[in-house]
């Protein structure tokens, strides 16, 4: 059985729910089973927003996971809350633009990404969420191909929003590169 899960968290408006949706849509297009479970409590009103995405080649049991294989965090409160819940061997993607402290988990892969700088460089300053998603994809042996995610971006940014697609894909790709670099063997 191939499967994975990731929790993506940040402030409301930072695009974590959308990033998760793109991942879920890409996985579905690949014929995989997916679930996308958002937090919908009072925290969505200006607090933190998070989503758990599960991907598997078999029907998904519980969409609610409390120990995660992947974690993507945009802000410090999310890191503090969910960091300890990542299982040994998991991947944690940290946005250094808003989290300026080190995060120690020797049993995990910690990918540090300045999502803001990379997004601005890609001329897509609003696509910081996609930089983070890319970094997660790059750092994991994910079962969802990158192309499927790009495809999902094109589908989401269609019509009047189509002009955002190219820069969004650039942001995603640069994120992927960051993620891959982080897991390259030292040397």
């Amino acid at each position, binding site marked *: 059985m191939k499967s994975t899960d990731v929790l993506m968290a940040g402030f409301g408006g930072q695009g974590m729910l959308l990033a998760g949706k793109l991942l879920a849509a890409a996985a579905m297009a690949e014929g995989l089973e*997916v679930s996308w479970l958002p937090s*919908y409590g009072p925290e969505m009103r200006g607090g933190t927003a998070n989503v758990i995405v599960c991907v598997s080649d078999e029907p998904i049991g*519980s969409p*609610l996971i*409390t120990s995660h294989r992947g974690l993507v965090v945009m802000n410090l409160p999310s890191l503090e809350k969910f960091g300890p819940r990542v299982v040994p061997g998991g991947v944690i993607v940290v946005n250094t633009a808003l989290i300026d402290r080190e995060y120690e988990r020797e049993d995990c892969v910690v990918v540090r990404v300045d999502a803001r700088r990379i997004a601005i460089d890609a001329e897509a300053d609003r696509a910081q969420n996609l930089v983070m998603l890319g970094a997660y994809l790059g750092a994991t042996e994910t079962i969802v191909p990158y192309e499927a995610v790009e495809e999902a971006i094109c589908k989401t940014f269609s019509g009047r929003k189509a002009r955002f697609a190219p820069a969004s894909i650039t942001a995603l790709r640069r994120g992927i590169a960051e993620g891959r670099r982080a897991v390259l063997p030292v040397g």
Partner: protein
Amino acid sequence: MSKVLMKGNEALGEAAVRAGCVHFFGYPITPQTEVPEYLVKRLREVGGTFVQAESEVASINMVMGAAGMGVRCMTSSSSPGISLMAEGMSYIAACELPCVVINMMRAGPGLGGILPAQSDYFQATRGHGHGDYQVIVLAPSSVQEAVDLTTLAFELSEKYRNPAMVCADGMIGQMMEPVEFPEEGAATPMPENDWSLGARDGRERRIVNSLYLSPEDLHRHNLKLKAKYDEIAANETRQEIYGTDDGYDVLVVAFGTMARICKTAIDEVRAEGLRVALFRPITLNPYPFGALRDAMDAIEGDGPVLDIEMSMGQMLYDVKLAAEGSRRIEFYGTAGGVVPSPDEVAEKIRGLMQGVQ
């Protein structure tokens, strides 16, 4: 048709349209608000009726009006709103009108919270309002099943001329999963009938009424309803049994979202060699008493039943009724929107198994 990724609430709305329901009356309440938000746009496309009522009291009565005119109609709400619909549900059941009510349960009592819960099991299965009436209650555990059971809810409500409820929770409402819908336009129209009101065209006048001032007449009406409920109980129970392949020493009973979480927990403990099965009622009313009893009787040795709910123990009463004292029943439940994790459930099972072995 290919799969689409959709939120449970929106998928339910689409399922209703595919089932041929183009009359919706509702009121916003978290966590079901995406149902009306989705349907207002969708019903405009298909030339249907959407009314945002002034309250849940009004929306269920609008449903009564539309149902009485012989059109397929529905409302949706969440726990506190369903409480307000209690009155209308009683009238609609008494008048024997078909309609579908969606309940995306949230945590109570009182204003409670907006997170998922199963604490309206009593409300759904033991009658919302006054009088000896029953509602068909279907409990999905995935977005796809929510779609399938919405289709079924319309079928059963029309077959038996009785309200049917799709009883899910906020998690299913808010979650996105891939879903497949029945083909658009494939639903059969409401058949001709001899009870709905409208332009008469020379026929005898009809009355949609629940007032019976003669006790004998009302007694007879109740007997008629009871006979119908018995027929529903005999024909319409549905359940899923999981993990029974090589026998089992413990039987977990759970429904809806909770059952799904239990499945993951059961996979986990079975991988450790523990023999555990899951019984999941899909119809909460009629409750599959017979099938549950059979599943209990198939437990090897004197192993217990573990009932797990996102409540303080409501379905538990039905599990005990099914057991009729024949087996030890254990309970684990959380409330308030706290959803037990698969790990937590697995731990409970392991604890129980220590006692068994």
